[in-house]
């Protein structure tokens, strides 16, 4: 008989959290800390969702989404997790750019970018200051229809090289394009510029392990290999979930699954007003990604290349080209032994943004061939900077949109959830179905490690308020 993954759970919970991505984990932790009875159900065997890692023989460990996040993570981890987790967050040393338009290294903060924009791109100080101030003044609730492309053009007319510098890292940080609302650019760019880019020392596995420990200390029940098929309603309100075919009673549900999956499959469109169903259907998903993971042999190393290295072979910036299967732009995340102190290992993860459709339609043979091509072209691209790298590699493999979709059940492998309109739909769910919330990457600004953690906090506040108001239930 298969093992009963749900053995030992309670008869009823205040909150069931579907999925253990960073939004789900954070929401669960806060509610657990407040004394609520919380159960996390995760279909995969590992917690963390896209904040994940994998191990390979001969001691290789690869991080999927540990490339960088803004300094705000320190405060959020301190407050909503613990001091130990917060204390392991450290600034990266440097970010490099190399493309036909420019090539240099930066600490990626306002001070250094001001200098670079003035010295290298000959922009007057007032224009640069004005740009930074405008970028910082955007609010998520007033979208006036300006796109990022229009905003950048207004600030730096005719300077595609400047737009390239400002947009490329953000396109990698949240999958946004020049056609997305300027406010999403302004908010995310300003978050990074306040103090630069940070990562978690010790690796994603350590962070998720520490989070799991904290959750257990706060009384949260966690079950893996536990796939939720359905949210059950009674009298229009949340009454439970069905997991691995078994009903579990609860007063509220927080879905950390993809927004559209939550509405269309877990709850069912018939439980929403027709206009809401329409707006949910219109929500666009973010683009997906491809990655190539390269582990060096024990004892081998490479010279400092920066921690994040944005490369492109195009002589202009173009959001469409950034996702094309004919890859012109790659970001190399370089991991030196100090990422995982004591490991002594070097590795490189190459990331490119990608379109689901380009990969989903391939036959099995064509898929394998494309994957092999992706790997080979990545090594060739890296050899331009590290000519002897091929001989030092001990492990190399690739992930495509299908890989991300399989492991985290994200729709179409979306790396960063949905486009901006997804935020309003996500926030609107509890008005449609009392007791139901969605927390997870949406709206560009609520994606990434920091965005999803903070969204988990926002939702935990609403769930706690609902449970207080419905004590008698």
């Amino acid at each position, binding site marked *: 008989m298969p093992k009963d993954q749900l053995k030992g759970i309670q008869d009823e919970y205040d909150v069931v959290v579907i999925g253990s991505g960073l939004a789900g984990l954070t929401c669960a932790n*806060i509610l657990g800390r*407040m004394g609520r009875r919380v159960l996390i159900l995760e279909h995969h065997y590992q917690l963390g969702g896209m904040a994940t890692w994998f191990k390979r023989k001969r001691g290789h460990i690869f991080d999927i989404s540990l490339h960088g996040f803004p300094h705000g993570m320190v405060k959020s981890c301190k*407050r909503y997790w613990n001091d130990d987790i917060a204390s392991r967050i450290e600034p990266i040393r440097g970010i490099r750019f190399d493309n036909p338009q420019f090539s240099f290294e930066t600490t990626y903060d306002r001070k250094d970018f001001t200098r670079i924009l003035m010295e290298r791109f000959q922009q007057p100080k007032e224009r640069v200051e004005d740009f930074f101030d405008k970028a910082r003044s955007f609010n998520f609730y007033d979208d006036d229809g300006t796109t990022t492309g229009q905003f950048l053009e207004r600030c730096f007319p005719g300077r595609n090289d400047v737009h390239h510098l400002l947009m490329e890292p953000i396109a990698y940080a949240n999958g946004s394009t020049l056609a997305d609302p300027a406010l999403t650019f302004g908010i995310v760019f300003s978050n990074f510029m306040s103090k630069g880019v940070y990562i978690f020392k010790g690796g994603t596995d350590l962070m998720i392990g520490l989070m799991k420990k904290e959750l257990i200390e706060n009384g949260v029940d966690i079950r893996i290999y536990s796939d939720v098929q359905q949210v059950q309603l009674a009298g229009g309100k949340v009454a439970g979930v069905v997991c691995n075919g078994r009903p579990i009673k609860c007063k509220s549900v927080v879905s950390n699954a993809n927004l559209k999956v939550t509405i269309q499959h877990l709850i069912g469109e018939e439980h929403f007003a027709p206009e809401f169903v329409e707006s949910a259907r219109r929500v666009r998903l973010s683009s997906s990604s491809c990655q190539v993971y390269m582990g060096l042999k024990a004892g081998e190393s490479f010279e400092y290349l920066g921690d994040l290295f944005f490369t492109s072979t195009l002589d202009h910036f173009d959001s469409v080209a950034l996702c094309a299967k004919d890859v012109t732009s790659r970001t190399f995340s370089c991991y030196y032994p100090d990422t995982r102190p004591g490991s002594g290992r070097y590795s490189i993860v190459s990331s490119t943004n990608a379109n689901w459709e380009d990969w989903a339609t391939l036959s099995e043979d064509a898929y394998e061939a494309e994957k092999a091509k992706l790997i080979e072209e990545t090594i060739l691209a890296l050899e331009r900077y590290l000519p002897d790298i091929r001989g030092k590699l001990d492990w190399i493999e690739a992930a495509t949109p299908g890989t991300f979709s399989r492991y985290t059940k994200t729709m179409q492998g979306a790396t960063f959830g949905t486009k901006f309109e997804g935020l309003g739909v996500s926030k609107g769910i509890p008005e449609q179905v009392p007791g139901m919330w969605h927390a997870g990457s949406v709206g560009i600004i609520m994606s990434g490690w920091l965005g999803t953690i*903070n969204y988990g*906090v*926002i939702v935990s*506040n609403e769930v706690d*308020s609902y449970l*207080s*108001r419905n004590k008698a239930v």
Partner: protein
Amino acid sequence: MTREEIRKAIIDILADIAPDEDTSGLKDDVGLRDQLGLDSMDFLDIVMELRKRYNVEVPSPDYPQLATMTSCLNYLSPKMA
């Protein structure tokens, strides 16, 4: 609770949320955001702490009422009377 007690309760919450800031010289009519460098997540924490410690509910449309100490006191006094 008296107005003075509510003031003390808010200061206690602020001291936990912004441990590195000096809350002793807070001006009642200047925005808390500017005086203590608070951001929107900090205001959310104030709301969560008010519920946890005093069982007071501040719905999101009312968040602007928490802008200054005076507006906090005006808004919370009837709720925490």
